[in-house]
């Protein structure tokens, strides 16, 4: 048994590479974080920032020729990034559940949801067919599917989008995993359904102590769900900290710009903060801090040297402006952008 303070997930120095004809691209650089039992870590960033790849590395589903080229991933103290394929298959499902964006592609359209659930349960737990079926009904009830005992024999196409995502969550929970990696679980859903799924994830986390890594580009979902947030940019974590600090007092200029660019239903602004330009392609990541060409505060050192994460305000940010724990006044950071 691991010590009680062992994090469920401990990622250290993770590096994911894609060999190409024109050289090796590094899509995830030196990413480190931990998730405690019952904690929700939000991972945000724009398309191509490496957030989904980080999730895929943890569940051992990086498509070749991509590969984990460095670092360690520990699940409850046990190293899992170097496990052989079959051993990883047991970990995935038994100890790590996965929820993806599109529930229709996560379910087999030819089998009833009951058959898929029962198969998953029996693969991982020593239960009889009848026991597994009872557990499957229980899971469907737990994720809020009405008339679960009847709906269990229906096919995926007979469910609506929100109900399908609930089925996928039930599948992820089938073997009582310690960790759920949820990659954009609410992105394909309407707002009213999205709210239901968020509440469901939060409740599961609270009731079962399941740790959740929630990958999304939707800051609203993060604000409602996560305990801590990691902001990714060009393959690295540029800021990580408690959700309230990252959202309301971001320290990295990229996080500041990202938060300012989000329209809200409660404030009225003439213009949204705008980060000019676009995230660099993997083939052309700038020297020094990868954000410096778009950063309104960039100075000489930013162009030469890459900053590591350092304490800044309530969070840790990879920014030379924060050397020695200097705290940006929110105003200076936001208005100058």
């Amino acid at each position, binding site marked *: 048994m691991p010590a009680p303070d062992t994090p469920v997930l401990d990622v250290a120095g993770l590096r994911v590479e894609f060999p190409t004809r024109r050289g090796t691209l590094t899509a995830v650089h030196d990413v480190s974080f931990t998730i405690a039992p019952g904690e929700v870590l939000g991972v945000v960033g724009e398309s191509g920032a490496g957030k989904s790849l980080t999730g895929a590395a943890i569940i051992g589903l990086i498509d070749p020729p991509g590969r984990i080229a460095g670092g360690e991933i520990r699940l409850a103290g046990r190293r899992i990034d170097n496990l052989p394929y079959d051993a990883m298959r047991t970990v995935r499902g038994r100890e790590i559940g996965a929820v993806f964006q599109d529930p229709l592609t996560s379910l087999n359209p030819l089998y009833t949801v009951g058959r898929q659930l029962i198969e998953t349960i029996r693969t991982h737990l020593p239960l009889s067919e009848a026991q597994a079926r009872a557990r499957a009904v229980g899971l469907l009830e737990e994720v809020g599917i009405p008339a679960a005992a009847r709906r269990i024999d229906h096919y995926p196409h007979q469910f609506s989008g929100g109900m399908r995502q609930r089925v996928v969550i039930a599948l992820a929970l089938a073997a009582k995993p310690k960790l759920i990696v949820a990659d954009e679980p609410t992105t394909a859903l309407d*707002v009213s359904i999205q709210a*239901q799924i968020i509440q469901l994830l939060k409740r599961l986390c609270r009731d079962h102590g399941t740790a959740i890594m929630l990958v999304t*580009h939707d800051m609203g979902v993060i*604000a409602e769900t996560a305990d801590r947030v990691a902001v990714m940019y060009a393959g690295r974590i540029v800021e990580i900290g408690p959700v309230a600090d990252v959202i309301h007092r971001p320290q990295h200029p990229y996080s500041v710009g990202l938060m300012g660019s989000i329209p809200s239903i409660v404030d009225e602004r003439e213009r949204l903060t705008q980060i000019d330009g676009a995230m660099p392609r993997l083939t052309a990541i700038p020297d020094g801090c990868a954000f410096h060409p778009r950063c309104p505060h960039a100075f000489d050192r930013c162009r030469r040297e890459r900053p590591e994460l350092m304490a800044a305000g309530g969070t840790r940010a990879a920014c030379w402006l924060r050397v020695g724990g200097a705290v940006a006044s929110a105003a200076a950071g936001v208005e100058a952008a």
Partner: protein
Amino acid sequence: MSAENDTSAAAGPLLRMTGVARYFDVSAPWLNRVLERKERVTLKAVDGIDVAIRKGETLGLVGESGCGKSTVARLIVGLYAPTRGTIVYDGVPIAGDGATKDARALRAARRGMQMIFQDPYASLNPRWRVADIVAEPLRAHEPDIPRAKLAERVVALLEQVGLAAADGKKYPHQFSGGQRQRISIARALSTNPSFLVCDEPTSALDVSVQAQVLNLMRDLQRRLSLTYLFISHNLAVVHHIADRVGVMYLGRIVEIAPTRDLFANPQHPYTRMLLDAVPDLEMTGEARTAVAGEVPNPLDPPAGCTFHPRCPLADARCRRESPALRPDGTGRGAQVACHAAEEGRLPPRAVPVAVAVR
């Protein structure tokens, strides 16, 4: 006149839809209907919409998938013909009952409106250079425009949306999503339109890019006195960009009001439910009203008010009688289609969304 009392005489509507409906026949093929005794099935994608869009304003249209908001966009630009009702643009009936037969007037009206689509990857021809994409609407409307003048105009359009003149030589795949949407906007502006129909123009973009595009759209609106119909499922985006907002549910507008009123004081129970469901950065920590149920099957909508199965205020009248869109009585130009609102049965809002003054 009651439906138009929100339109002051000074600024007449640029576009007016009166009783516009669009049905789709989604029946099984004839032989199956005969052999299997299936009935004809009609999908009422848009079922009677009355709306007027004033010159220079941005009307936001929100609703969940399948509520008919994109069908409204397609009806206006002429990609669909209305099943009934009339669409009048700038005084010219362009579609539906009593549509003008005058081809020249129709062409002029059509030239005045353009559309921006959601997916900038699908709406630009990958085999065309950007300059040709942007020039195409101009060529269609002015076939004998001199080449030099066309090239000049394309450069001006590209610069107007923040691209470089040299970008005209490139192909769409050389641009990021946000830049592609700028190309779509440049193309839409090429005929000097006064009205843009924007169907989820930022939904496929990352937030920081979305901010760039929204700021650009606002600048262009001001500079070129454009009128927008802005369709989105994202309430925060609509709150940011729109002057007035219409909320759609199952093919009808259930509430339409000035943006500030709609968000501060929503009347229709569906609007309230939607607003409660939006995750927000403020993290008030307050328990939100549980959102009940899902949108019913549009092939078999509930009788009476289509929202009644999900509505906490539904009574016998709601199950029987479909409510009409009528002024909410505040005199601020808000209209709501709800028996409970009309009868004064609305409870005060549990969690009022205060419009923070910043």
